[in-house]
Every structure is written in structure tokens, then in C-alpha cells.
């Protein structure tokens, strides 16, 4: 497996949707290629960081205002 071939299936590797036989090829490639190993690990970390840190928190007062407006309009409808 080449680096280009690895990159093409990077998403499938991350999402763990890889056939068993391809997995062996990937593991062999990663043992030899430090660059692809870094790309895989840091891409996984990128996703994890965005999953764990909410960058657009919904303020409580906005939430409360939303409920007041929606409930009022729904009851009228």
C-alpha cells in the first residue's frame, strides 16, 4: 500500500469500516510509514477535540426566550 492509497481510505480507517484483509495491509503500511501514522493519529485527535469542546454554547437566556416564544405560538396555532 502507498501513502496515496492510504490517504484515500483514511476516512474508512477512522470510521472503522475497513475489511479485515485491508486492515492487515494498513497495519503493515503504518509500521513502515511514520508520516501516515501521524496523519491518522492527529486526524483522530482533531475529531475528538471538536467532539469534546462545544464552541457555540447556547446561552440559558436565549434558550428560555426560545421556549417562551415557541410555546406561546404553538398554543395559539
Amino acid at each position, binding site marked *: 500500500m502507498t501513502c496515496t492509497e492510504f*490517504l484515500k481510505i*483514511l*476516512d474508512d480507517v*477512522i470510521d472503522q469500516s475497513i475489511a479485515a484483509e485491508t486492515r492487515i495491509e494498513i497495519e503493515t503500511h503504518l509500521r513502515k510509514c*511514520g*508520516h501516515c501514522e*501521524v*496523519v491518522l*493519529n*492527529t*486526524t483522530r*485527535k*482533531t*475529531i475528538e*477535540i*471538536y*467532539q469534546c*469542546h*462545544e*464552541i*457555540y454554547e*447556547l446561552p440559558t437566556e*436565549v*434558550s428560555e426566550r*426560545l*421556549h417562551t*416564544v*415557541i*410555546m406561546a*405560538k*404553538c*398554543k395559539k*396555532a
Partner: protein
Amino acid sequence: MSTIQSVAAQDEQHPDVALVERVRGGDVAAYDTLVRKYERQIFRIAQHITQNREDAEDVMQDAFLKAYEKLDQFQGNSKFYTWLVRIAVNESLMRLRKRRTGKLVSMDEDVPTDEGSVPRDFADWAPNPEQNYNQSELAEILKKTIQGLPPGFRVVFVLRDVDGLSTEETAETLGLSIPAVKSRLLRARLQLRERLSRYFKRKTPAASPATAAPRGNGVEA
């Protein structure tokens, strides 16, 4: 066996289906439960598309009201949440269009670019690199980094990786093909990784102790 499977499938009915049925039966409080369940996600998606807090608040309100009005059109062959997200995405795009004085805005408008899709930075990251920044610095880095992506990439990444929608659900929600979602997701992930590497990569041994500890250094422009 097939009977057991069909009973199991009925048992696995999504809890939103029962809530939607209650709303259709006139139970307004059940709709409030749905709003509370998804308000954070809808606000996040609207923020990511509009990049404007005021617009995101309006979009969130309009999307929930529109979903309530159109609840009879919800077929139940997709999840309530993906149906709701689709409404929120359309509302967000309409809001953007207004800001751009009528210019057509859609999820298809980005011409896919190869920029940043081929990894160039192969430096390994420090262990738990986010811990080198305080909460507000980290939030600023993450915001600035994702805002640099084209909108069509950004939304695919948020729906797929942050909200946890499947590729198929993301495609259905955005009206894109599955290959288009896959292509955008790969590019989004790689571009974000490349940009975050500036902040998170392990410092070289030659770096001075001051530069090796980024805490408090602020966010690079």
C-alpha cells in the same frame, strides 16, 4: 425468527416517534420536550452556517416553529432530528442569502478545492495538546480554525463528526450525494488537522522553554 426480529424492531422505535405522535394529538408540552432535546444542536448548526449569533438565534426559533407547523408533513421514514436539521439548514441558507442581498446560497456552491487536502505537516502532536491552552484560548482556536473551511465542508464535518449523523443521514439532510459527503468529510478533516497542527504540534527539542509552553501565549493570527 422473523417474528422475533420484527418485534425487536418495534421495540427499538425511536423515542421521538412517540413524542411526535403526542404533539400531533395536541400535546404542546411534548413539543417542548423535543425543542429542549435538540435546541443546542440546532443552534450550533445555525452558528456554523451563518457565522452570526443573532442570525443563529433567529434561525433556531424559525426552524422549530416551521417544524411544528409542518409536522403533518413529517413522514417518519427518516429520524425527526434529521428532518429538523434539514429545515434548520434551509433557514440558515435563506438567512445568508438575505445578508448577501439575494445572492444564491446553497450547500453546492463551494467548488471543491485541493488546498489543504494533501497533508504537508507531519510533525507529531504533543500528548493532550488541548491542555496547553485555557478554555477560552482553545475555543478561539477551534472557532477560528473551523471558520476557515468552506461552508459546505464545515457543515458536513459538524453533522457527521460532531453531531454523529451517518453519511447517509448527512447526505439526505443536505441534499447531497453520498460520494459528495464522503469527499467533503475527508477534505474537512484533513484541512482542520493541518490548521490545528500549528497549535498542537510537539515542540522541537531546540525550542526554548518559553516557546515550548504555549499556555497564555494567546492565539496566533
